[in-house]
């Protein structure tokens, strides 16, 4: 189980007068994610979703708070935890000059996949994602959809327990987006824990078991899509979100 407690991340920026200003991209976020659960992290641009997921993936160090995977934490078991994580974001790029096979082989080596199983595993993933026709082609020569499949294969190759997907469908066409959404559903069936951030509310409503709505670095609502809609007396998550932002602004 993934446990995030009171997670804060402070950044420094310079204002127009070139003076330092500190701000919290995330300010006390807590949640839990269980096996086989898809947690949607929803919020507008600048809400703190990417910073949150980067901290959960171990790319960014939190200013305060704790992240634990089972009984392991990043402070002491960073490398071990990363072996169980797959991180994919809209900005995640892969090595263009490598072939799909070379990339997957490299990932297997790095993630410590048993040497005797590497070939079988690559062929298995290539078959699942229909990549056999371009397995030995360089990634730079692949289409966007094919590249996205390679990216998914990279995440699947070491059979991780946790998926951290940050706006993974942003900027993709409908077919490429569907590939990702199908992949998420399949992995959920296999008991994987998935954190999925998006600003497409409808998408989240369709696939997430629970949703955490974030705005300005804080959680403004958490629960199942049905609960949030009922609680806000709305028919969809988009309306719920706008109502919650309105409430938040009114409270201030």
């Amino acid at each position, binding site marked *: 189980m993934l446990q995030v407690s009171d997670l804060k991340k402070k950044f420094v920026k310079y204002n127009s007068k070139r003076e330092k200003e500190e701000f919290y991209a995330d300010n006390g976020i807590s949640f839990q994610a269980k096996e086989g659960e898809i947690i949607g992290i929803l919020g507008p641009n600048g809400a703190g979703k990417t910073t949150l997921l980067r901290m959960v993936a171990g790319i960014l160090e939190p200013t305060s708070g704790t992240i634990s995977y089972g009984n392991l934490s990043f402070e002491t078991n960073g*490398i071990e935890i990363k072996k169980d994580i797959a991180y994919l974001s809209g900005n*995640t790029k*892969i090595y263009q000059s*490598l072939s799909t096979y*070379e990339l997957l082989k490299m990932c297997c080596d*790095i993630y410590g996949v048993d040497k005797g199983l590497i070939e079988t595993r690559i062929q298995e993933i290539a078959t699942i994602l229909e990549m056999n026709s371009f397995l030995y082609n360089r990634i730079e020569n692949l289409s966007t959809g094919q590249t996205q499949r390679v990216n998914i294969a990279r995440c699947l190759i070491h059979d991780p327990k946790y998926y951290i997907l940050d706006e993974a469908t942003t900027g993709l066409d409908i077919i490429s987006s569907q590939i990702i959404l199908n992949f998420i559903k399949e992995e959920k069936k296999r008991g994987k824990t998935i954190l999925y951030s998006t600003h497409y509310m409808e998408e989240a409503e369709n696939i997430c078991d629970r949703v955490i709505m974030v705005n300005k670095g804080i959680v403004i609502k958490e629960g199942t899509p049905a609960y949030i809609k009922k609680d806000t007396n709305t028919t969809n998550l988009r309306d719920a979100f706008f109502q919650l932002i309105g409430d938040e602004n009114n409270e201030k």
Partner: protein
Amino acid sequence: MKNNIWNILKKEIREMFRDKKSLTMMLILPLMIPLLVIGMSALFEAQTNKSASEYNHIGFDYKMSAVEKDIAEKVGIKVIHGEKDQLREKYKRDEIDLYITREGNKYTIHGEKNDTTIYATALVETYFSSYKEYLQSEYLVNHHVSPEDVVNIISVDQKVIETENFFANYITNYAFLFIVMAITVSATYPATDTTAGEKERGTLETLLTFPVKSRDIIVGKFLSVSLSSFITGIISLVLTMISLVIANDMFKIYEKVNLMLPLESFVFAIVVIIAYSLLISGLCIAIASTCKTFKEAQSALTPLTFLSFFPSFIAFMTNLESSTLLSMIPFLNFTLLFTDITSGNINYLNILLMFISTIIIIIVILFIIIKQYKSEKVLFN
């Protein structure tokens, strides 16, 4: 840990060898060395073996005696007569190389100092020396004194052995300086690509999600850049040796010298190339990894490129000699040791000190880069 360094290194090498620009930087620069060695040798030889016909047209504004004409002919002067003003005009039109005027017993050589007049002046001085000797002998004979007793009162023999050939030293030093330059340039491109380039392309984020320690990432990247600069260094060294052997046979200026390095010198030249490749690769990665974009990194590395050439040029131009202290000064030590190696003066202590000091610097540099990569600033600065 070792496995992950190897995994990163394999990835970097694949990327490097598949990138046309990296390959060009690695392989094209050494190809300039044969051009440099052969071209400069040809230039030196052209200057040394200047044909007498290019500087022996000398103007005289007075009527020469039969003896003067005879001496002039013997030393190879082509005599052109004329008035002073006429000779000045001819000189301006490059029809003569110098002209001489006479007032009583005072002779004056006229001309502007350049490559041709240096040779022409030497020729005219030989002429006047012979003519003066003739006049002195004639005077002595008229006064019943044997010229042999006076003119050859002492004799001077030359037994100066040529131990160093100026041109050979110059060309080998220049070629080895070019090896240093080629290694530097060869390190900058892959260092930029593997740090700032990777950041700009968005693959660094992917790399940081892998269960790999910062130390393994940096050491892998460092070794790949070092390999690139080392390959350039070795190709440059081999091409230098081949060019020097060809030049040795091709040009008379190297007639009495052997430009081929002995095996021992070749081996130590490789040691210096290894040390320099490691140092420059570490420095390039350290600087480039602080930059956000490829372009920014290239700008940031330009001063380092100049910094690496500058001490070498100073050492080369001032004929600085290596010492224990100078062997530990980065950049300067490599040029000085190359000069020692090419001249056959291999000092093992200096080479050892250079290697140890370089390794210490590299460890410090790697420590700094690893620290940078542990910090999120490397990705989001």
